């Protein structure tokens, strides 16, 4: 089969006659070691058994497969022996028939794959029910019960629950909001592909407008999905407030421009900034106060919609937080001096030893209570570690501890914490909807992981870039905003997309904490009276959706990487 000789160049065309040394072949490919010989015997036996079984259960397909296998094998061997391959046999030789093991494995695996496909096809199509009407489905099941055959997939449950799976209990009469969001996002994506890919829009107003629109997109979609609307009796008022606000802000804009050009003093700029903040906040307060939210997300949001909302929110919200955490963890500001740290910890420790440990040790119940009472002794240890590893840098210590604690615990505990612990951490009487709590928890969780990704990117930036930025006189903020972060984030885009895919998959966990997202709906289907106990089919459907979603994201990330030239330069 594969005599280890290269295809000799055709300098000797007359050598195309077949030359095969049986003894040498056996010595080299079967009896090279006793392990190989035993393995070949075992493999041959398994292949024979499987082939025999398949021949009985699916005669035609198996016979055809064996025939094709035999013909291609003979062709490959023949071409190999006369040292003249065509492209097909060359490929076959390299990929399927390179050794005796591979020849047998190829047949075995092909048969097994065909068997798998056949049984899945049987389950998913031939014996399946596609009718979402319960009566038809019942009749289908009964017909299989009569013959004693195993029924296939009941896709009716999935089809019947399609809307539930996608948006769950989103009110039917508000469906237009979903279409509006879809339409808006579709138009934005389409426009982006045009605007961002073409060179002539590079510095145009259109592109700047698109940027602003993209920044506003989360707010717009949130507003649409929540059913934010002006209260009907306040429409006039809102209009007037908006017009007045815009006019005032416009006036302020020109005034600021005039003032800052006339009197370029630093403190004046600060004052103007403060005025801006105050005016903007006032305008927003006046306008937003007139709006009301129509839908309660705890009830209206569900299914794939909720999954997408949480995943997108978590990744978007975690971005600024993650960048800050990464910068904080890497900050090199001069730390708190050791004398201050140790002095204050000594005082604190003494204070707690007196107020907490002494009463605790008066009447300890057991050893555990004694250990618990001695907790203030941990303060100096913490102070020592803080000085040793962070050199007194409080910011770095805080960010590191946050990142490592969040990364060290499972997501599910963080989610449960948001459900159970948030109400305890907030002032008495504050009620926050579960959806918001879970979203905040997901964002907090994601930010720790994102921080590590961004930190990786920051570390990849050569020192020279920092030094160059400093040497041309940029301030710290400018240095990071203009030089470091753009490069760092470009480097970590693949990692961030990977993280988003992970988050997209991890949102399934909120099904456990009681929100009905995509997987939650799939779990509920089996409890419907029409589709009692139907579990596999919704899960298979979900797997397809998740697989397709993740796959598309991964593919587009690879394309984006190529476009942005990550890994080059």
């Amino acid at each position, binding site marked *: 089969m594969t005599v280890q000789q290269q295809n000799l160049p055709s300098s000797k065309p007359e050598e195309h006659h077949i030359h095969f040394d049986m003894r040498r072949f056996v010595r080299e490919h079967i009896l090279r070691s006793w392990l190989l010989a035993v393995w070949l015997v075992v493999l041959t036996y398994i292949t024979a058994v499987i082939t025999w079984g398949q021949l009985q259960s699916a005669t035609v397909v198996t016979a055809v497969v064996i025939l094709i296998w035999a013909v291609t094998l003979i062709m490959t061997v023949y071409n190999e022996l006369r040292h003249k391959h065509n492209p097909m046999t060359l490929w076959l030789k390299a990929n399927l028939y390179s050794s005796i093991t591979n020849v047998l494995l190829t047949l075995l695996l092909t048969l097994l794959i065909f068997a798998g496909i056949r049984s899945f096809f049987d389950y998913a199509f031939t014996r399946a029910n596609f009718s979402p009407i319960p009566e038809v489905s019942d009749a289908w099941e009964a017909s299989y019960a009569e013959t004693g055959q195993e029924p296939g997939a009941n896709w009716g449950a999935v089809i019947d629950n399609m809307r539930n799976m996608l948006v769950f209990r989103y009110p039917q009469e508000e469906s237009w909001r979903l279409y509006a969001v879809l339409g808006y996002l579709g138009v934005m994506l389409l426009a982006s592909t045009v605007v961002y890919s073409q060179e002539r829009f590079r510095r145009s107003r259109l592109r700047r407008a698109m940027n602003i629109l993209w920044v506003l997109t989360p707010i717009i979609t949130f507003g649409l999905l929540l059913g934010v609307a002006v209260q009907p009796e306040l429409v006039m008022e809102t209009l007037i407030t908006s017009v007045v606000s815009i006019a005032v802000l416009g006036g302020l804009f020109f005034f600021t421009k005039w003032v800052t050009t006339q009197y370029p003093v630093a403190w004046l700029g600060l004052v103007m900034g403060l005025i801006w903040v105050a005016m903007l906040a006032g305008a927003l307060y006046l306008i937003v106060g007139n709006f009301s939210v129509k839908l309660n997300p705890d009830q209206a949001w569900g299914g794939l919609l909720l999954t997408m909302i949480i995943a997108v929110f978590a990744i978007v919200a975690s971005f600024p937080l993650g960048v800050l955490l990464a910068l904080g963890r890497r900050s090199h500001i001069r730390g708190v001096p050791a004398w201050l740290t140790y002095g204050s910890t000594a005082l604190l420790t003494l204070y707690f030893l007196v107020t907490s440990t002494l009463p605790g040790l008066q009447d300890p119940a057991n050893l555990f209570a004694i250990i618990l009472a001695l907790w203030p002794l941990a303060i100096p240890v913490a102070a020592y570690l803080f000085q040793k590893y962070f050199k007194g840098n409080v910011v770095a210590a805080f960010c590191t501890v946050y990142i490592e604690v969040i990364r060290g615990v499972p997501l599910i505990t963080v989610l449960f914490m948001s459900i159970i*612990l948030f109400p305890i951490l907030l002032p008495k009487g504050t009620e926050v909807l579960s959806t918001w709590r879970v979203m905040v928890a997901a964002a907090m969780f994601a930010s720790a992981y994102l921080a590590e990704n961004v930190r990786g990117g920051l570390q990849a930036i050569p020192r020279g870039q920092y030094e160059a930025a400093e040497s041309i006189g940029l301030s710290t903020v400018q240095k990071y905003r203009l030089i470091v972060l753009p490069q760092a984030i470009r480097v970590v885009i693949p990692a961030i997309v990977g993280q988003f895919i992970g988050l997209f998959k991890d949102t399934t966990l909120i099904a456990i904490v009681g929100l009905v997202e995509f997987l939650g709906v799939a779990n509920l289907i089996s409890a419907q009276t029409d589709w009692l106990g139907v579990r*596999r089919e919704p899960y298979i459907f979900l797997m397809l959706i998740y697989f397709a979603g993740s796959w598309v994201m991964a593919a587009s990330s690879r394309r984006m990487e190529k476009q942005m030239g990550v890994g080059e330069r």
Partner: protein
Amino acid sequence: MAELSPTPRKKQDSIPFWRDGRVIGVFGQIIFVIFVLLGMAWLLGNVSDNIGELGSFRCPDGTESFSCGFNFLGIDAQFDIAESVIAYDPSDSYARAMTVGALNTLKVSVFGIFFATILGTFTGIARLSNNWLVSNIAKWYVDFFRNTPLLLQLFFIYFGVILLFPGIREAVQPLGLPVYLSQRGINLPGLSFLPSSRILFLFLFAALVTVVIIWVLLGMREQRLGKSINRVLWCGLAFVVVMGTGWFVATAVPSSQAIMVSSSLPVSSFEDIPGVVAERLGVSDLAMVETAVADGSLEAAAVNDAALTICVVKGGAPETNLANQLIAANVPYDVDRSDRIDQALRAFEKGECELIVGRSSVLTTYQATLENSSQSSIVSIDEMPIRVSIPRIEGLNFQGGIKMTPSFAAILIGLVLYTGAFIAEIVRAGMQSVPKGQTEAARALGLSEGQRLRLIILPQAMRVIIPPLTSQYLNLAKNSSLAIAVGFADMWAISYTTLNQSGRAVQVFLIVMASYLTLSLIISFLLNWYNRRISLVER
């Protein structure tokens, strides 16, 4: 020239303190600390406000104190746990219940890491196979499991596969192996260790020491002679010789196992038993019973009536020892299990069974306590150090072997398949990171394939593999918390029950987070230590 020399610094030239980076840094940090402390104080204030109502920090004397927060750990848990590594009872404390949970998490993590590593390594190598089909199947496996959520896979495995297995009577035996798949989970053959296995373990230890010594000595000899010695062969030979001796010694020592037989069963040695049972059934040879039942000449009920009834202590190795010998002799038997030996003895005394099996010393002491001790006799039986215990359907349950409950099977299989896919990619990347020239150089030096892998490829690939592998192991340990979705009582599931029952939310979360952080630290510490050992020493 004079202009070039630095002008002496005047006082107003020095950086004012509000622009001095050092001062700003410390100042900013102090403000940061104040903000953090204020935030924490606010949260703690809210906590104490809210918790006052819940009463979860109340001391026995009625006052509220944070130091009393963990007193609840001593209260009775009062919930049952389906499976546990250590003995547990609902009357045990919450602390014990949470320990059970922690051990269960540890169990899943350890088994999961072990099997996921094996699966991942094989798949990673399969990804690099020169057979197009093999590498593509591996690729699709990896792609599929990496791109679908773990929780979804767990639900599918648990609800869509394991719970849909047939009932216990129709348990599936894949490929005819002694492995049973049923609604009750997965039952596998296991090993039972009889008292004489201690000798075998001593020999095992001796064998390992011998192997290490021979390995080192041969290595020195190899260097001295400059000749290659087949160290694996010699060490394997030494191991087999020592273990063989061990087995011989362990089986040669007098048996510690015995049966106590009531006078209704007239036997004086184990060899008599088949004859007695055959006589009861009216057949000459017990080997024919099965065929006789199959062709209808003998009724199954008759066989059941004639079956030997045995009293044993639950889960003991003596039972496996006797059962294996009875099965070998084709003797039909029924087992009556008790929790303790005295209960088993009482059952024997009442005549519920014809014989009782256990250690001969134990049986002798107990025989004296029997009212009519002369009615029973003690017969010694053979003992093997290690017996294979094969699961056997008895009534509505499996007896013997290793039991995997559906929940445990689901979480273990799910974690192994999911993490295995990630590990496969890591292994593939590691193997591919070794330059081709290394392989060629190894071949040029005349190293064998095994030596090439062991000495050249693996050490270099390991450096690339270990760091991401660490994070995968950590992920597996953390993902084991999804066990709550399939009803396996792991750390988080039990903590959650504790939380719901006791209402101590803050404390339970603190304990859970501390436990998971500890687990993460242990895993990363072990692998970092290993990584330091194998990593390249630069400059």
